[in-house]
């Protein structure tokens, strides 16, 4: 509350006692209102957020029941306590607590604006298991096929993301290829007419996987 008071003082330089008192009353009133609404809504909001996340993660890592949040700091993977800095990694487990896979965010500029997506990765098969577009303003009818077109989404059911022998990069970079020319499991078949958006998805995945997966290589035990 204290900042709010100071701020209001700054707004009214001619601060006689009455001015300060009125402002104080109003500020207190607002504060009380805001805080009570905040307290009241917080559980609902948290539940909403959780449900949304659960749905998103379930889509990219099928079979997830329990989720845990981690952060990949320079010193390694640590549980997310809200303070650590680094890339967020969501680990998903089935009901028995067995690791089903992880989910992470990726982004790249698409046709209209940045496309943000969540993708799942399964350490067992060393492949990407699904994507969920979190944010996109791609053109309806063209670019929006990256989350509406079933054929395109099928690319990500088991997209090869193996590490190379040295373990410092993907064995095969993930690339988007022209529609109808997909030949290898690490390639993404572009949507005809929305090559730009398709390529953005490929780029986002490749950028994220190339940096994240090598660093996770030694961390899987912590997740299990």
């Amino acid at each position, binding site marked *: 509350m204290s900042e709010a008071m100071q701020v209001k003082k700054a707004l009214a330089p001619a601060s006689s006692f009455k001015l300060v008192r009125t402002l104080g009353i109003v500020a207190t009133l607002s504060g009380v209102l*805001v805080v009570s609404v905040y307290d009241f809504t917080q559980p609902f909001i948290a539940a909403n957020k959780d449900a949304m996340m659960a749905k998103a993660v379930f889509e990219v890592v099928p079979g997830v029941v329990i989720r845990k949040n981690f952060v990949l700091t320079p010193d390694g993977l640590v549980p997310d306590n809200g303070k650590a800095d680094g890339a967020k990694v969501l680990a998903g487990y089935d009901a028995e607590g067995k690791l089903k896979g992880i989910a992470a965010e990726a982004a790249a500029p698409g046709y209209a604006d940045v496309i943000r997506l969540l993708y799942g990765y399964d350490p067992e098969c060393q492949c990407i298991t699904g994507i969920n577009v979190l944010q996109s303003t791609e053109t309806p009818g063209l670019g929006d096929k990256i989350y509406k077109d079933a054929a395109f989404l099928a690319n990500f059911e088991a997209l090869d993301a193996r590490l190379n022998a040295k373990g410092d990069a993907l064995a095969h970079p993930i690339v988007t290829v022209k529609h109808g020319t997909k030949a290898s499991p690490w390639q993404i078949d572009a949507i005809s007419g929305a090559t*730009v958006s398709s390529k953005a998805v490929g780029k986002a995945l490749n950028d994220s996987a190339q940096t994240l997966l090598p660093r996770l290589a030694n961390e899987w035990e912590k997740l299990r």
Partner: protein
Amino acid sequence: MQPDSAMFIFLNALIVNNFVLASFLGICPFLGVSGRLNTAWSMGMATSLVMIISSVCAYFINELLVAMDLEFLRLICYIAVIASTVQLVEMAMKKFSPALFRALGIFLPLITTNCAILGLALFQTFRDYSFTQSLAYSLGAGGGFTLAIMLMAGLRERLALANVPSVSQGAAMSLMLGGVLSLAFMGFAGLGG
């Protein structure tokens, strides 16, 4: 370009998703103060200035509020701090650079509480921009606003001498111009991707 690079953020706010024409912030001054080129220029400059100031302010207030777990006061603090900072800048300007004050001064109070400024602060918070990113964003937004309002003012000065039908004079015309400008800026889609 990486989507979180400062350059990308700058270009995005400047042209690709122009702050005014695609993000719809600062529409009121864009429509209202775009009648003459020189006022539009002053408005653009003043807005850019206030944007940079408020972007910096908002960044630090947010850090402070997050640290103190007072995020629910964010909106109230943003608007209050931005308003008072601009007031201070105005006073300082009056004292140290009367010429600049004469050029921009009358616009400052008008700007303080418009949505371009608060929108900038809120968007940079929503997108978790770092300090550099915020700065790049505010520069892009200020530039984008100035660009849009200058183009608009140029067109409107030309149209002031045209035989515009009475029905389409005024706000309707400005909106249509804004629409065509917005169409034209769609050409920048995907730039830097």
